[in-house]
């Protein structure tokens, strides 16, 4: 936590956030206020815009409307306080780097241009690798890792960013049970240290025990709050049972017309 920052400033706030992707609306009028120090699951059906929400928060996608604030400021000003774990498939695992190189990338944001990594950065990276139990693999080429190991490397990289808010896109996808347990252990520890963590998750059966609060997302926020309140049959049916076809049709038509087709 930064000094002098009000306790009440939320870790993440979005207002009326709308995003379209390839002329299809994905998010429509999303309002979220996520307080600090929470482990939040983002749950919803396929194509509900879960990953899009995370990318939009980081300004990686153009917004059609609305705004995003991280720790009460626009993302651009606070980006060093945000750590990101992308989906595993988003990178080329044949890339000629080893595990250590990837984790070091987490330090690049703090280093900025021109400065080269120092011993301290290397030590931090090593520590992070140790936390995810990947230190023995530090010198291994990344294409020689299993899916779970790759995910742990990404996690270590995010830890190396030493952020206050973590955005994770499906960290549990395609990992073995041991990795999954290790990851959730780590996330809980991060939360204990006052970090805020947003996790895109699609497994409903585990979602309930993993997260203390949850965002049910399907193009819009269907519900947001403590897990025991939100995770009800009625709310889940609303999230998963059928899209609002009219909403998505109209929003799609709007996008098409705005793009001139």
């Amino acid at each position, binding site marked *: 936590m930064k000094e002098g920052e009000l306790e009440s400033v939320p870790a993440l706030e979005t207002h009326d956030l709308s995003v379209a992707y390839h002329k299809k609306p994905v998010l429509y*009028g999303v309002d979220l206020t996520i307080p600090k120090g929470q482990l939040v699951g983002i749950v919803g059906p396929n194509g509900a815009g879960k990953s899009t929400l995370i990318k939009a928060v980081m300004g990686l996608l153009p917004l059609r409307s609305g705004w995003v604030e991280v720790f009460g400021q626009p993302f651009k000003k606070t980006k060093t306080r945000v750590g990101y774990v992308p989906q595993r498939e988003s990178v080329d695992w*044949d890339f000629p780097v080893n595990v250590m190189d990837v984790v070091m990338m987490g330090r690049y944001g703090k280093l900025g241009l021109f400065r080269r990594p120092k011993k301290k950065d290397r030590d931090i990276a090593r520590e992070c690798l140790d936390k995810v139990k990947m230190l023995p693999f530090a010198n291994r080429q990344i294409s020689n890792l299993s899916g779970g190991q790759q995910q742990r490397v990404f996690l270590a990289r995010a830890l190396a960013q030493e952020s206050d808010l973590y955005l994770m896109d499906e960290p549990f996808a395609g990992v073995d049970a041991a990795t999954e347990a290790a990851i959730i252990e780590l996330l809980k520890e991060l939360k204990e240290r006052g970090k805020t963590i947003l996790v895109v998750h699609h497994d409903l059966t585990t979602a309930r025990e993993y997260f203390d609060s949850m965002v049910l997302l399907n193009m819009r926020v269907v519900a947001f709050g403590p897990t025991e309140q939100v995770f009800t049959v009625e709310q889940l049916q609303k999230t998963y049972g059928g899209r609002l076809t*009219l*909403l998505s049709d109209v929003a799609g038509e709007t996008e098409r017309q705005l793009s001139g087709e």
Partner: protein
Amino acid sequence: MVCGVREGEKIMHSSVIHSYTAWRNSSLASIVLLAALLWLAGGEVAQAARIGDLGEVSAWQQALRFFSFRDAGLRLVLVGCLLLGLNCGLLGGFVVVRRMALVGDTLSHAVLPGIALGFLWNMDKDPVAIMVGATVFGLFGVTVVGWITRTTLLKQDAALGLVLSSFYALGICLVTMIQRLPTGNKSGIDKFMFGQAAALGENDIILMLITTVVTLVVVVVCYRGLLVLSFDREFGQTTGLPMHALHHVVMLLTAFAIVVAMQAVGVVLVSSMLIIPAASAYLLTDRLHRLLIYAAVIGMGTAVLGAFFSFLGNNLPTGPFMVLAGTGVFVICFLFSPRYGWWTRLWRLRSRRLRTEREDTLKAMYRVLENREFHGEGVSAVDVAEYRKDTVEEIQRRVQNLVKTGLATDSEEGQMIHFTPKGYQQACMIVRNHRLWELYLTNVARYAADHVHEDAELVEHVLGEDTVRRLERRLKFPNKDPHGKPIPSVRDMLGMTHEEEGAKMEGGYGYRP
């Protein structure tokens, strides 16, 4: 599968069989055309004077000479260009929709060693030897690309570039070795680099004719298979169609097309005869059979134009001119294609913006009227300006637009505005759309009330009548919006309620259906 190219293409989703019949009809046209070409080529072939030998003649006379088929040498060139344009255009259609444009490029560079070896065969420009050598090397190059991507971590683009330039380098070495040989007719070989249509001989034309006919026959006969191959090869395999065989046939035909076009277009640029006409056609249509026909026609056009320009420029290399002619066509399609043109789209956006502007003004007029409970006659520009938080001048400018489109009339030098029946109808429609959408967002999608207005401002201009009907059904035919304002109904739109005001307004609400 040569190199794991993604072959999915949405444009071919329509029924395969339907396309086939359409294709059969239109392929007739190309066959007739081909027959005409045959007839032309079969005419008396005199000793060809090299084009451009004429010297001091005006461009117009040259054009006449070029296109009139009177000069036997030129006739050969013209027929050759038409054939190569047709052939490359057809095959280019498949190349472009299968995203193999750069495979075509690689193929066309990889033939160079084959050309050199073919030339070496009997130290002469023997079309058959050159064609065999070139085809073998071209296909071998493409195969090597497949091997590299399958057995190493290198990706397709790197493999393509690698093969393209390595084979080309080998070819360059061989060509320079041939050039220092004391014997043989070497003059022809440098023409292969940038192309010289005037150097086309009778034998070349015959080869071109054969390959073009084969291509046409294959495309017409196997159209359905090729369609499936281009769209979804794996699906094609499950249906038992011989996808591998078809793929290899297409690659072979493409290699042939490249090799016979090489003489006129040159090694370096011949791939553009595959890519550019087909890419232009791709912007014009959504159906594969039309795309092929357009590509063939554009191909023929650009080939002939290119040859003509090079003829005008006293035998400058033909290839670059063909490419530029093709680029011209592509730029036109890129900008002005009825559906996908860039300029077309900008124009559509602009007219949509103007419409939105008109509709916003109409809506503002309606709201001003509504706020005073539809009392009084006409709306003053000042009121509208105040409502819209715009300047009066801006409103008056917009009103001129309304007047021009027959949606409103003005009086007192633009100070007062009156709806026409059509204008009132539209205003009601927009207000209705706005309020329906707000209602939908709050009641069904459960958005907070302070979110809905802004979105409705955008959506009101987009809702079609069908969607409005769906909305009304979903909302159980409401008559009040979330803020309690009445939603104009069909009756309002026809000017039947608010009779009181309607009667007062001049020329306005007397309207009855």
